[in-house]
């Protein structure tokens, strides 16, 4: 892939000299994506900047051990997901019982608010799968859960969002 080739060149250049210029090129190539992911995973709450900065600190410290078994962006986003997880409060997952119905009396709300209203773990599964294209195996690895949990949480999260949006039936 074109991005993979350019990422390899940027990383090699950075590791050769550890120059600020080389880092800034890497930073500008990937931080908009990382920042957007952090904002969404945190439900728009504060902390996204700290998460991204911490992610770069950890990634740069370990960059010489990265083996290109995944795309560089996927690896970088792993640090973002972990950083967001440290900030989650309360229950992370959709409960086992059926909660797809919107709370009574609550009016329909827009998509962004519906997603932000999900528990953080379920929100992460929904965003990582439907928005960022991660597979269930990758999500399970990132979040430290079973693949089956990722699948069931995705199903419940989608149902909850649909219910809150006031839509009926499968898309």
């Amino acid at each position, binding site marked *: 892939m074109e991005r993979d080739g350019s990422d390899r060149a940027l990383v090699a250049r950075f590791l050769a*000299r*550890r*120059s*600020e*210029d080389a*880092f*800034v090129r890497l*930073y*500008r190539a990937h*931080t*908009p994506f990382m*920042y*957007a992911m952090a*904002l969404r995973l945190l439900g728009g709450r504060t*902390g996204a*900047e*700290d998460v*991204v*900065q*911490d992610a*770069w*600190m950890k990634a*740069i*410290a370990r960059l010489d051990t990265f083996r290109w078994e995944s795309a560089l962006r996927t690896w970088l986003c792993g640090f973002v997901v972990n950083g967001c997880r*440290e900030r989650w409060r309360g229950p992370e997952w959709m409960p086992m019982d059926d909660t797809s119905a919107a709370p009574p009396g609550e009016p329909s709300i827009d998509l962004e608010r519906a997603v932000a209203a999900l528990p953080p773990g379920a929100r992460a599964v929904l965003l990582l799968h439907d928005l960022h294209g991660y597979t269930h195996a990758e999500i399970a690895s990132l979040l430290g859960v079973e693949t089956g949990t990722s699948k069931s949480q995705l199903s419940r999260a989608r149902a909850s969002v649909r219910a809150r949006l006031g839509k009926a039936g499968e898309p």
Partner: protein
Amino acid sequence: MEPPPALERRTVRALRSAGLLRAVWWRRPAAVAALVAAAFLAGWLTRGSTRDASLPPQAGGSDSPRFALLLYGEGAGGGSEQDRVREYREWARRLASEGRRVSGEKLAEDAAVAGPAVPNAGGLRGFFILDAASEGEARRIAATHPHVRHGGTVVVRRIVPT
């Protein structure tokens, strides 16, 4: 989605502080000279004092995040009050010797309240203000404060630039 421009500068600075980046000083001699002059004027080159009650706000162009460490609780540790103060001052001096801006004060036990009462107004024993690259780093530093070892609590709050 574009991140705030200041995030890039903070990240670069944090990486440089951690020794993970090499600064390209030779490209900016004028900037280096200006930085040294500003640092001297701001008193940074005389750091080592832990009682800088007039810690400047983020003048001089610094956008390094600052955090307040709020010390609650008495703690059950032994030693005299003077020993405790000396210990806390030594902790701050070690941070300052690493190149970090830090200041702090001990608070008297009596507290006067203006406005509605708040719980445990007198429980705040002292505070420190310091620079840290991130909230995570500030939390890690707070965990090393001797107040924690003596059984007290250190609350970390990010200072919002205004």
